[in-house]
Structure formats: C-alpha cells, structure tokens
C-alpha cells in the first residue's frame, strides 16, 4: 500500500477499523471468557444465579477464599492425567501430518503432471469420499479392526485419519502444483534430470508455502477429530478431544465440567502458539496459490 492512490479516505478508514475491532472482539471474546472462567468454580462460570458472578467470582470466593482457583487445572492435569492425552494427540498429529503430506505431495504432483482422464475421476472419487460422514466409515471399520486385533492402538487411528484427510490434501496440493509452471521441470529434464530428480531439485524448493498451508489444515483435522478418535481408541490411548468429552459425565453419573473447561483452555493453548508461529507461512503459503478451484 505504498502508492498514494491507495490511501483510504478517513471515513472509510474509520469504518473499516471499527469493523475489524468488532470482528476481532467477536472472534476472541469466547476464548478470553473461557480462559477467565476456567479459574472460577462451575456455578460462577455458568452463572445459574446471576451472570455478574462470572466476573466477580462470588461463589469462587465463598469456596476458595480468592476470586481465582486452579482447581480445574489441577483436577484435569494431575488427577485425570490429561497429559497422557496430550502426548497421544501430539503423536497422532505428527504422524497424520507427515504421512498425509508425503502422500499428498507425491500424489498431487503426479496428478498435476498426468494427462490421463482417470486423474479427474480419481479426484472426484476422493471428493465423494470426503462427502461421506466419518461416523459411518468408523462404524464400518469397527468390526474388522477388532477381528484383526488392530483396534484401540494409535497407528490404526493415524491410518484412518490420513485416509479421511487425504482427499482434501490431494486436492489442495494438486491445485498448488498446477500453478507451478510445467516448463520448470521440463527444462530440468532437458538438462538431463530424471522425473524424480526434477521433482527433487526443482519442485521441492518452491513448494514449501503450499505444503505448510496444507499441513496446517491436516493438523487441525487430526487435532480436532472426535468421531474417529472416540470410537477407535481405547481409554489409555485417548486423545484430548474425547478425553475432554468424557469429563462431562453421563446420564446416570455426575461429570466435572470445570475439568473440561480447564482442559479446553489447555487444548487450545498449543494451537495459539502454533498459529503465532506459522501465521506468516500460512498466509504466504496461500499467497503462492495453493488453493484454486
């Protein structure tokens, strides 16, 4: 926005700033509220009596002598061993992202360079597969997994998540590679490189932004998944989201909502760090034209 011609008139500028402030408030408020509330007791946060309690912490003071309590965190992390779920989530995310990016990059590259008609149909099948609600898939997988003794362990879940995620990765990277001019690898081949060498020396250096963006979306899928992880993992291998859900209790028994709230804050914290760290890449990755219908 160097050019003077692009300077906004003051009225528009104010309007746009006001809009941004409003939007950022809407986007961030629920999180700040939850963060604040996670240091209170249940009655205050959910304000069954009066909503101002959530701010003053009236019941928290009555119970703990101060307006803030770390009980929820202590319960979730120490007593319920939430850290185990954190480790499991880390493992699942790492492998899902690595595997789906590897397949996605190679597959997306191959598809984008392929002239055959089946590539289109392959992409369409991938899309249809993505349209299928994951919960149906999982119930279909359940029986064979038990029979082959694969149920409950992390690798199975990773494979299923990769499979669910692959269509999206493939589409995104496919469009991305299409934006890299074919002349680039063709000229490399003229110089005597094999197809693979061309990929390695010419394509890899320019593909990072697209890969990082795709990787972020894959990560979010693995991180946030509930349908697959809740059905395919045994209790000790559970990831964060089903674990949080299990804090909420069942029909006949009482749960502990504050553990869940503290865990929700804990589960969102690493994402904050991640977005902070990768925001430049996300945006620049998208800038390279990673996405195009």
């Amino acid at each position, binding site marked *: 926005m160097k050019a003077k011609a692009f300077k906004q008139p003051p009225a528009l500028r104010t309007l746009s700033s006001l809009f941004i402030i409003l939007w950022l408030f809407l986007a961030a408020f629920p999180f700040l509220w939850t963060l604040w509330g996670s240091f209170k007791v249940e009655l205050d946060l959910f304000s*069954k009596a009066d909503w101002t309690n959530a701010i003053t912490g009236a019941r928290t003071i009555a119970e703990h002598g101060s307006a803030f309590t770390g009980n929820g965190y202590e319960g979730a992390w120490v007593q319920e061993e939430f850290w185990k779920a954190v480790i499991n989530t880390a493992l699942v995310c790492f492998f899902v992202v690595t595997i789906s990016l590897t397949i996605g990059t190679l597959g997306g590259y191959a598809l984008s360079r392929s002239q055959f008609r089946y590539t289109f149909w392959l992409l369409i099948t991938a899309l249809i597969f993505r349209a299928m609600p994951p919960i149906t898939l999982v119930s279909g997988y359940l*029986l064979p997994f038990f029979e082959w003794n694969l*149920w409950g362990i992390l690798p199975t879940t990773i494979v299923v998540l990769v499979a669910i995620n692959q269509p999206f990765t493939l589409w995104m990277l496919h469009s991305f590679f299409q934006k890299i001019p074919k002349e680039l690898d063709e000229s490399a081949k003229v110089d005597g490189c094999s197809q693979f060498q061309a990929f390695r020396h010419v394509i890899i250096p320019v593909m990072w932004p697209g890969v990082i963006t795709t990787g972020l979306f894959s990560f979010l899928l693995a991180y946030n998944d509930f349908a697959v992880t*809740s059905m395919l993992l045994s209790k000790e291998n559970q990831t964060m989201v089903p674990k949080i859900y299990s804090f909420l209790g069942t*029909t*006949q028994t009482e749960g502990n909502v504050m553990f869940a709230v503290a865990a929700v804050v804990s589960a969102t914290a690493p994402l904050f760090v991640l977005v902070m760290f990768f925001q430049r890449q996300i945006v620049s990755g998208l800038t390279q034209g990673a996405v195009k219908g």
Partner: protein
Amino acid sequence: MLFKKVALATAIGLVASNAMAECEIGARVSIVGNEFPAIQAVGSAAAECSGSEVKSNLTADHQKINVAGMSGNPAEYTSAIIANSSIVALMNEDVIRPLDDLVAKHGADLKKNQLITIDGKIMAVAFMANAQHLVYRKDVLEEIGVEPPTTYEEMLAAAEMIREKGIMDNPLGGAYAAGWNLAQEFNNMYIGMGGDFFKAGTAEVSINNEAGIAALEMMKSLSEYMNPDFLTHDSNATSAEWKAGNVAIMNMWGSRVGPLRETEGSSQEVVDNTMIAGPMTVGGGETPATTLWWDGWTVAKNISDEEAEATFIALNHAIRPDMLNEETSPMAVWLIDGYEPTPAATGVFDAANRGSVPYPMLPFQGLLHTSLGEELSDFMQGKEDAATALADVEAAYTAKAKEKGFL
C-alpha cells in the same frame, strides 16, 4: 467430585492392601464397561488377581464398542459390564455365554437375586442397582407447608404453590432433554399410568392409547413449571440447576444423589435441605412411575473356557462382600451380600420395595427408546397433539423394527 476421586483412590489403596492371595487366574481377562466410580472400583478390584493379565477399558462409549469387541473369535473383551438396557444388544448378537456351570463352580457367595436368568440360563451377574426417584428441598416445602409429594399430581400442586408464593419461578426440574432423556421420562410416566409398550409376545408396539396420551399430557403440565429450556436439559444440566438452588422438586437418578449433597459447586443451604424419597405414582396407579436398573457383568462367548473361567473368578472376586468398605459403599447401591444402605440409597431401595418394574429387557426396547427420543419433542413444544406424536413414534419404531427383522 475432587473429594470423590480422592476417596476412590484411597479406596483402591485400601482394597489393594488387604487383597487376599486367593484370587489366582490362569488366563487373560479383558473388561469393557462404563467409567463411573463404582465400575472403576470393580475394575480395579478385578485387577488384584494375580497369575495373568487383567486389562480394563472403562469408557462412556462402551456401548458402541462392546458388541464389535466381543464379536471376533477370540473376542478382544472377555467381559462387558452392562445394564439391563444394554445387555439385550449383546444377547441379540449372541456374543455372551450362559454362566450356569461357572456359577456352580465358583459362585457360591453370589445371592440368588444377583443372577440374571433368561429362559433358565444365567446370562449376567448384577452388582449394583439404580432408579430415578424424588429429590426435594425440605426448606421450600416447609415454607409452603406441604408434605413431600407421593404422586405427580401433588408435585404439580406444590409447584403451583411455590410459584404463587414467588419463591421460585420454575420450581420443577427434570431431565427432559430431547433424545434419550425425554424418552426415559416418557417410559417412567407410561409405566406409572399402567401402560404396556408392546402387544404381548410380539414386537408390535402399542403406545398410542389412553395411558400414552395421559402420560404425555402429564409431562406437558410438568414442563410448564420447568425452565423454558427444558428440552436441552439433560441430567447433568438438571443437577446443575439443583445445585444453583433454582429447583425445589425433581425426579432424579439415585446415583446422582451423592454429588448433590456435596458442597462443591453448590451452597450449604441447598446441600442441607436436599432430601430424597421414593418414586412418585401418577394417575392413581399403584406402580411407581419409574424403572429399576441394574449394572452387572457378562462373560464373552467367543473365548476359550480357560479365559471364561479366569474372567469369572476375577470379576467374582471384584464383587465379593469384603470389597465393601467405608469408601466403596457410598459409591452405589450395591446388590452385594452384606451391603448396608447409606442414606443416599434409600430412594432406590424404596423404589424396589414398592414394586417398581425393571426397565424392560426386550430385544427391541432400544429401538422404541430411540424413536420416542426423536418424535416426542414436537409434542413438548406444542407443535402437535399427543395422539399424533404417539402415532409418529409408532411409525418410526415400525420402520426401524422392520429393518432389524423384528417385524
């Protein structure tokens, strides 16, 4: 809750320290079940056995995985801990074995009423019971000067008085969340009205009758004294309302009474005045408008006899009379020999003594329950009349039952 978990941990410690060497098993044991404290206590008591590995996977999603987990050969799970509503899924798929020989060999300590017998064959061993019953605020009822209600009609009258006096806007509570909870409340009310769900000996549903309509009308009248969001209040939300002091009378699970009497997340005033009584009747009926529930364990069919025997020994050990102590006794209403009812258990005991009926153990009851959960909310919102809602339920059930081969 924190207190409870600490108590549980201590209990396990205590049990472990005086564990007897008598529990010796010779093959693997693997248990799947729900995750509430009483079942966790059973799971850890089973793990005291030595000689082979005892694994347990206790999770709220147990119902979704137990059939699949027991269908393989050999089955992943050698035992599933289930309730009377969920044992039918295992029996329908034929994945659990009769226990008569094992009971004869190892189960001398089991009481006759713990044995779940179907067609003369023992299919499960029950260890705890549950039921929904009345919970009331003593101070509020004293203020309006009435006795705790014994019928739903009295409950309505009391609610009207509380509202009139301006003590509370919405004095009634109830787990009326659309879905499983609402369907369960209908079941209670319909049973209280003396209705039968099916034509005898068949899977044909018949609830669109006077009892059904009366049950729905009663639920509608009750809901007028509830928080306007009642269709989103499951039993968790209803308990939270109670703890916040917004509700004076409700029909609630016996297993939830303990937490209601803890000051954590509640106030001293509410805790001191939370009283329980047996379930209420409705429409002049004799049978209380509630259902009785048991939790028990089963043994898988597709496993070797050694594994079945080991599983039986371990779980039988887990529910032996001396597993009951100060810590474990208040966790549930145990059916184990030598159990002394704690004050929180009186509601469930009263329900059993007054001839309440168990939740029907029919192969197709689950389908009806789901159908009720789907179709009744239109009536509760006043979008259609009771007869139409019930006709919808019947039609939804019939489609499902045809698909599953019951009709």
